[in-house]
């Protein structure tokens, strides 16, 4: 009798065990396939022409994320019963067609320092509010706005390492482009390729979305550039296959979001202070249709001011302004993306500070009245 009870108990225990065991197996299988998947995609040679499956470098971070999140599959069983749980895994559509993981990535962006891009008549300015987390950080070191090829800059708000990863991909794309077309990549094509790459991180649960919004600004040369490695001048007479009088190049600005969505902008802002920054950007004269479209130098000063305005909400924290610009071939940067020279940066910061103080004074006056 006793042994019967014991046997029954054992059977019950086995029955209970069965679920977790099969769960474990499933986990193992899943992680195995995940490893294979990562192996496969890492072995793939970098795609060259159309980055339809440009899935070359999945970060180890993504793999560990997968392994960590897997054991919680038991939660997903509640999914069908009460309608929640659609946010536990990337690439899963909720019943109303949303990818919650991407929306959570947007939250990471909203916590980051404000970044701003302004498209001016003769160039583009990028600016970043860099919060100083410690007095032990060296001033002016730790640059975060980075160059792609020679004429494009990328600034991002959100998770810093994701930004670096994106820039590294952008540099690969730019060099691939050069190896095929023997010329620098147009800003629009770079934005497109990065858009595809970021979007690819929303279509599988083996990776997580990018925790950044990136602002991509560049100046495509308006000159007839020689082909890379060109050693002669081609035909001495005739157009040499070029369209005579065709206008080309100009300033370009794009903003790319964690979903892979990107648009061209007159002025763009991301990060914590984006609302204030957008309100300021909307007041500026931007765009080809306007007669007094702001110049690059004005753009630098406005960008500095906007970063200062956007910082008002977190006044208690120290910050450092980082700013880069790119002009046309005859402008101050000679078509290259560079950090704004120190004297101009300091001048812009002084004016920004002054504008802020002026606003404060006005408010105080009003209060007194």
């Amino acid at each position, binding site marked *: 009798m006793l042994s019967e009870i014991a046997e029954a108990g054992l059977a019950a225990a086995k029955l209970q065990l069965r679920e977790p065991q099969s769960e474990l197996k499933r986990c193992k299988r899943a992680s195995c396939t995940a490893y294979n998947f990562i192996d496969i995609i890492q072995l793939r040679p970098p795609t060259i022409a159309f980055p339809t499956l440009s899935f070359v470098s999945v970060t180890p971070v993504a793999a560990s994320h997968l392994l960590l999140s897997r054991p919680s599959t038991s939660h997903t069983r509640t999914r069908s019963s009460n309608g929640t749980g659609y946010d536990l895994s990337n690439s899963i559509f909720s019943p109303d067609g949303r990818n919650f993981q991407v929306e959570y990535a947007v939250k990471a962006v909203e916590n980051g320092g404000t970044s701003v891009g302004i498209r001016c008549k003769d160039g583009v300015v990028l600016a970043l509010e860099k919060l100083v987390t410690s007095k032990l950080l060296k001033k002016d070191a730790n640059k975060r706005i*980075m*160059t792609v090829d020679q004429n494009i800059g990328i600034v991002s708000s959100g998770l810093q390492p994701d930004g670096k990863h994106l820039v590294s991909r952008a*540099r690969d794309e730019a060099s691939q482009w050069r190896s095929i077309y023997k010329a620098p990549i147009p800003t629009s094509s770079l934005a497109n390729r990065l858009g595809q790459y970021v979007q690819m991180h929303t279509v599988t649960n083996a990776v997580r979305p990018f925790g950044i919004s990136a602002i991509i600004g560049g100046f495509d040369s308006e000159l007839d550039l020689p082909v890379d490695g*060109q*050693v*002669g001048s081609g035909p001495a007479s005739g157009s040499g296959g070029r369209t005579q009088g065709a206008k080309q190049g100009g300033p370009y600005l794009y903003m790319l979001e964690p979903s892979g969505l990107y648009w061209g902008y007159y002025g763009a802002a991301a990060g914590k202070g984006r609302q204030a920054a957008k309100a300021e950007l909307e007041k500026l004269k931007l765009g080809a249709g306007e007669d007094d479209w702001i110049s690059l130098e004005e753009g630098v000063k406005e960008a500095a001011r906007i970063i200062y305005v956007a910082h008002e909400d977190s006044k208690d924290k120290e910050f450092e302004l980082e700013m880069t610009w790119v002009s046309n071939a005859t402008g101050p940067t000679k078509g290259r993306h*560079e950090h704004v020279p120190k004297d101009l940066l300091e001048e812009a910061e002084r004016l920004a500070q002054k504008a802020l103080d002026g606003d404060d004074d006005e408010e105080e006056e009003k209060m007194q009245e």
Partner: protein
Amino acid sequence: MNHFPQSWGRPRDDVYGAYDHSHFGHGQPISHTQSPIVTGTSVLGIKYKDGVVLAADNLASYGSLARFTDVKRLRKFNVNAVVGFGGDVSDMQYLDRLLQSLRIEQEYQQPSSTLTSPPPPASEAPSAAPTTEAERQAKSQLSAKNLHTYLSKVMYKRRSDFNPLWNALLVGGLDDSGAPFLAAADLLGTTFSAPTLATGFGAHLAQPILRRHVPDEAASKELTRDKAVEIIRECMKVLFYRDARSMDNYSIAVIGRGEKEGVTLMENEKLENQSWAFAEGIKGYGTQVV
């Protein structure tokens, strides 16, 4: 090395007999440039007290046809270095693109702010620190010596793959300490350095003249910029007289420090003061007098 680029890298026929291709059998390694097609001839280089002068003519030959007369074979890398290319022109274009991507990647390492930030206050700057904007820029970029090391490794790798880049290169400019630097690298990965250097036909005809003016390092430390350019022009003239694959349009590059720092590249020079008048008096091949 002689002036026939197609025989570079092969055992000499006059010493070893005609090359027997059957040694390879059927399983040949993949190799692209097995013989040069469109070629450039000599490159000359000379060190003077404040820098280096390089020269090469603007011709790219297709066999004995002077096919392309507007080919610039001196390529500026940065403010410190210029590369002169002899040999196959398609391989030269490949190397030029390789250097372009190297330059872009170098700039990723080197944030632009260090190039544009104002000089440190005079009191803080030690005497050895760069003082002018150009010098600061030069310090932050690859030197000619770095570039030569890179190129020679590329050349040696390719020859070790039985897939050489069919070129003879001269790298001229300034080394890390700002001193003049001149060195050669070729399709075998062979490298050497001297106060004067010449590739191809120039090694036979120009090098003796260059050495007469500059026999050793000490002599090159005495040489002025103008004198160096003059010697090079003289050599280019001799090469035009004697080299059937040369042309009278040429390029000169001067990479200097001091007052005239940086790279001066003159790409459309023309030979002057050629001496042909004596030809009037030459008649027949022996006994003929009219």
